[in-house]
């Protein structure tokens, strides 16, 4: 174990990958999406009507938190070109004669074009559009009803007979940061653990120190492995605990689970990825192959985790395949016991699965021993 600490101190890659890069990732994601929701996204207006009504509509749109009217365009095709030049994300089109038709009750039609090439901005701009169109309609209806002598309560009822009472459990601000950071940062940390586990084993063979390492442990593989990975485990645990403290306590991300559940999933996360990393190296005791597999597997798990695009929307074979990714189980565990604060029993399957990942090295122990004692590194 002391020997491992010395190795970690001497080789700068460890220092970078185990501490600096994870910290960088934490800072990167939390600062990138500091707003939580995108504010003041640039949009345009094509106002061919140009009356006080249409201008007040533009002003109302501008007053929304998400949208900011940055330009007026003389025609639709000009506005479309502005989207293609990435100057705006969408535009409101008010055709000529809108006010005239509105006052004479001939149901004018306005249109709202928005680009869906960025899903987040598209969805949010659409929300603003829905609100403004409802408000526009409501203003006219309200004026008519008030003229007929209805009370305010009656007007409200008539305009919107059924109201949706929305409860956004655990994330009432619809904060994107909460979604992305809590999946991608642990994912990155797990990716590093996978890589470093394979890397540190492979380097023993590469630099021909594996026999010396085995001798220290009296040729017992289990002791050798524990000695090698215990210091790493402690460092990772410290990093993960720092991440959890920073995100959940310092930045105040929602967490309904207790501090014990946080500690539990931190330990599970580190051990399961170490287990998987050792297992991959045991299957392919070559530094380059195992690291390639680990990195490809790790990068793929960001898609298979199903945080952005849900697993239930994927094809059935992929749904089954997602079980093979430790990050997927970590995410489910986090989501059930920390984010929503349900009891651990509800997530037993994912708990057991992570446990299974920890035990994976068991299958390859003899192969690993053979590799450590007999293999010679070929560049």
């Amino acid at each position, binding site marked *: 174990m002391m020997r491992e600490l010395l190795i970690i101190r001497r080789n700068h890659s460890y220092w970078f990958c185990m501490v600096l890069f994870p910290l960088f990732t934490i800072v990167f994601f939390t600062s990138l999406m500091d707003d939580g929701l995108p504010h003041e996204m640039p949009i345009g207006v094509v106002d061919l009507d140009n009356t006080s009504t249409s201008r007040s509509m533009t002003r109302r749109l501008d007053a929304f938190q998400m949208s900011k009217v940055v330009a007026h365009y003389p025609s639709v095709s000009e506005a479309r*070109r502005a989207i*293609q030049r990435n100057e705006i994300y969408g535009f409101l089109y008010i055709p000529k004669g809108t006010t005239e038709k509105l006052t004479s009750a001939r149901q*004018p039609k306005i249109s709202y074009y928005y680009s869906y090439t960025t899903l987040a901005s598209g969805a949010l701009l659409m929300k603003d559009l829905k609100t403004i*169109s409802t408000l526009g309609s409501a203003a006219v209806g309200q004026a008519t009803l008030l003229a007929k002598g209805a009370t305010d309560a009656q007007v409200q009822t008539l305009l919107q007979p*059924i109201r949706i009472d929305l409860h956004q*459990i655990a994330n009432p601000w619809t904060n994107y940061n909460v979604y992305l950071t809590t999946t991608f940062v642990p994912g990155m940390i797990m990716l590093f653990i996978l890589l470093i586990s394979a890397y540190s084993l492979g380097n023993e063979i590469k630099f021909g120190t594996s026999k010396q390492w085995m001798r220290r442990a009296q040729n017992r593989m289990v002791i050798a492995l524990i000695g090698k990975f215990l210091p790493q485990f402690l460092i990772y645990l410290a990093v993960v605990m720092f991440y959890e403290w920073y995100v959940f306590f310092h930045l105040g991300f929602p967490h309904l689970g207790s501090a014990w559940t946080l500690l539990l999933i931190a330990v599970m996360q580190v051990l399961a990825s170490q287990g998987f990393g050792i297992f991959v190296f045991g299957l392919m005791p070559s530094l380059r192959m195992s690291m390639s597999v680990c*990195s490809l597997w790790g990068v793929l798990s960001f898609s298979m985790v199903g945080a952005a695009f*849900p697993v239930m929307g994927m094809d059935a074979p992929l749904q089954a395949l997602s079980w093979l990714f430790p990050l997927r189980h970590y995410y489910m565990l986090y989501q059930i016991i920390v984010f929503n604060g349900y009891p651990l029993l509800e997530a037993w399957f994912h708990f057991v699965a992570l446990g299974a990942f920890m035990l994976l090295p068991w299958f390859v122990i003899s192969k690993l021993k053979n590799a450590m004692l007999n293999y010679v590194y070929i560049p």
Partner: protein
Amino acid sequence: MSIFHDIYNGIQDICYIWREEMKQVFHDEGVIIFFFVVPLVYPLLYSWIYNNETVHEIPVVVVDDNHSSMSRKFIRMCDASPDVKIAFYAQDMDEAKSLVSRQLVKAVYYFPSDFDAKLNRMEQATVGVYCDMSLMLAYKAAFQTAQLVSMQMGAEMKAKLGGYYTNREAAIATKPLDVADVPIFNPQGGYGSFVLPAVLVLILQQTLVLGIGLSAGTTREKSRYGWLIPVSRHYHGLLRIVWGKALCYFMIYAVMGVWLTMAVPRIFHFPQLADGWTLLTLLLPYTLASIFFGMAVSCMVTYRENVMLLMVFVSLPLLFLSGVSWPLSNIPAFWQGAAWMFPSTFAIRAYVRLNSMGASISDVMTEYNMLWVHTIFYFFVACTVYYVQMSRARRGTLDRLAQKKQSADDVEDDSIDTK
């Protein structure tokens, strides 16, 4: 010796290095993985993952305390919508909550017992929607469906209560201002169509840099003293080395680039508005910039595995910095600046606009020019680092020679001493 002879010699050396590099690429399984297997297989895998584009039929549980024809109509209309499926009926909120916690449903629709009474008394009725917020798309589907149904039922009630003479009058009264919302460039709001183009372009740069780094690492490890440049008659001109290697990578990635940017989107029916020539115009500077970027990075790695640790790590941040998933206008200025260092940032932006949004090359001129700037800049960086490597190797060789002489002398001295 004429200048033509020099040029002829140079071209011959370039071709020699090109061939040597080609041989090395095909003999190194690590490089083969990143140059061929990953660019060929990964796009297919990603496209498969996101091929369904949207989620339909989100399971929802209903708690109906009202049991009236009104509440049942609401439930039926939700169930008939494409995005929501009424999977369970629960007796009370506790039962519904336990269904949510077991991941069987994603949202709860709650109808209070006075739902239809309020409607018939001309008071505003409410429907409670409780969403599990762990999946954005599920939340959006459950909430939007309920909202649409409530608006639709509200409009029907308004029309009935208003006592209008004609259908047209009722239609105008319930909706004085008609609004068309037109999502453009990705009309179905598909997840794959939005994220895949960026991923495809990023794969090109990442695999290229990884492959170049690995192959440089191999050269170093094979060479006895850890040098990047072998001692050989052909490796004595800076430009020859850089161009020779670049030609080899360019040859491979001309094929891979076409596969990634043209073939894959066509196979999986992602938006493809740009024609082949426009994309090739974009690919040329991007591939060159990535190659020189990769060569510059490869010189900084001593061991072949370290490049993997580095490049795998930056992939995800690079994807975010390109402004695909988080709007560009909301990325902090500091990170925007950092993103300017990587060719992929500009290539992704340009590619998305050309291919998904049907822009012309003149609309993406800033990005396009930046790619050429990158190409030239990284070409000089690559030349510089290779120059440093070369002089180091030359000095190293001279040192070794001197050392050998010295040690030979020492041995002689020793032998004299022992005598």
